[in-house]
């Protein structure tokens, strides 16, 4: 299943946020969206996931959803968006309750999602009892439970400390390894983008336009090798040089606002 951003523009009141953004996320592909602060990355993701109606253009799906997918486009949120009154298990089961799945099937799906995210021993815990990293794992388990075709991840690691980020990045790489799931990964962290994405959409300063789409010329498995690090760092530097001037302007704009 492909996800297509088709000439998407958006404005909030008189403020132009996105301008004519188009790209395609092919089935199983991981596309990162980077750009300076306030370039409309998160707005674009909300539009792609159907949570925000664009002023112009549209988000489109092409092709059939994979068999058994209960929610082809599934978000993983920056702030985890867990129900604080529900246990880990109930949070993961939350999106399944209104589906056609029976109780036994639901339990099997939840068990599988908890196992894949290493949460099996924490199923009865409440979110307030968990660290930030574990909370985000619950968010990921909840997303896996509905068997998405494409994960829409909105800065999923930015609320976490660097060690937890590293651990979760390894989880993402593992979960996306078989190509069964694609992802749109919004981030301001170029290292994350370079490690995870097949392609990186670089947006300009507000209003966000597609400045460049950068392909990463190696598989995710190859990126783990020591001799790949130099190449990845060079890619990261290239991306930074694309964004740097605008990031400075964006920062000044925020300060003067």
């Amino acid at each position, binding site marked *: 299943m492909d996800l297509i951003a088709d000439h998407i523009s958006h404005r909030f009141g008189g403020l132009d946020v996105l301008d004519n953004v188009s790209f395609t996320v092919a089935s199983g592909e991981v596309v990162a969206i980077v750009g300076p602060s306030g370039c409309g990355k998160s707005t674009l993701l909300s539009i792609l996931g159907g949570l925000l109606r664009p002023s112009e253009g549209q988000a489109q799906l092409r092709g059939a959803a994979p068999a058994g997918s209960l929610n082809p486009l599934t978000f993983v949120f920056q702030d985890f968006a867990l*129900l*604080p009154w529900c246990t880990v298990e109930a949070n993961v089961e939350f999106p399944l309750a*209104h589906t056609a799945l029976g109780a036994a099937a639901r339990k099997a799906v939840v068990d599988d999602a908890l196992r894949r995210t290493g949460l099996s021993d924490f199923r009865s815990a409440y979110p307030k009892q968990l660290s930030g990293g574990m909370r985000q794992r619950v968010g990921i388990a909840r997303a896996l439970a509905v068997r998405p075709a494409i994960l829409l991840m909105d800065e999923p690691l930015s609320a976490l400390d660097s060690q937890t980020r590293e651990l979760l990045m390894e989880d993402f790489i593992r979960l996306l390894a078989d190509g069964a799931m694609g992802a749109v990964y919004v981030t301001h962290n170029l290292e994350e983008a370079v490690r995870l994405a097949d392609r990186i959409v670089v947006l300009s300063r507000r209003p966000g336009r597609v400045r460049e789409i950068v392909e990463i010329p190696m598989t995710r498995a190859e990126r783990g090798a020591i001799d790949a690090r130099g190449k990845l760092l060079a890619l990261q530097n290239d991306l930074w040089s694309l964004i740097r001037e605008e990031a400075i302007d964006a920062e000044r704009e925020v300060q003067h606002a």
Partner: protein
Amino acid sequence: MPSARCSMLERAPQQTLGDESGPRPVAFRGAGFMPSDGRASGWIALVLVIALWQFAGSAGWVSPLFLPAPSAIAVAIYKLAMTGALWQHVAASVVRIGSGWLLGTAAGVIVGFAIGLSTLARGVGITFISALFPIPKIALLPLLILWLGIGEEPKIATIALGVFFSTAISVYSGVDAVPRNLIRMAQSFNVPFHAIVVRVIWPGALPSILAGFRITASVALLLVVSAEMIGAQFGIGAFVLQAGNLMQTDQLLAGVVILSLFGLAVGKAINVLEARLLHWR
């Protein structure tokens, strides 16, 4: 002429200079501003005040007509309980509070949710609530008597009205306070509207709704006493008023103590409810 204070200040730098040669502990500056719950001190203070009050009464410092001793109030409550009058008055008040509170709460929750979820209901509802909420509801009792007769209905309606407005406000404030990201999350999983209301908005608004219950319980108590003082044969309010008219101060204060105990019991019940329903906080 140097004062004693000045000379202390003048000596201070010399001490500091003398101490700088070796290591010295950093002065602790982080004390205070963290009061903790001192349950024991509260009980001790309460017992002390009652003991002092009792002593003042027994020693004849205070006329029992103006302030009867706690023992006299306890005796009055005991006699009222024995004759059955206490239960008659308490039952009359509890029925009025219970039915008025339930009616007002049910209507308030429905209207509060409507205001929290619908643009039209919000526009209309907030306008009416803003206009009617400030009216002291007891002022409507004569009108309600005119409309509903002189039975129980106007008293219950007065309580229901008082409870309704506070409940509606606390419910829609609670609905407004439910984090939007949780609602968007549910929508992103295609969770249907009614399931979002039941499984996200209701539990999310519950802290505010329960806080509202605390307020409406005291509103209901205030209104039942006021309404009973205006026109009732039975009920704690009527009893307190009659005792006052007959200068039976011990009976009057017995009524006040019962009201206080009733308020405490309701507060405790809400504490239990909060502990059960909001344990996740």
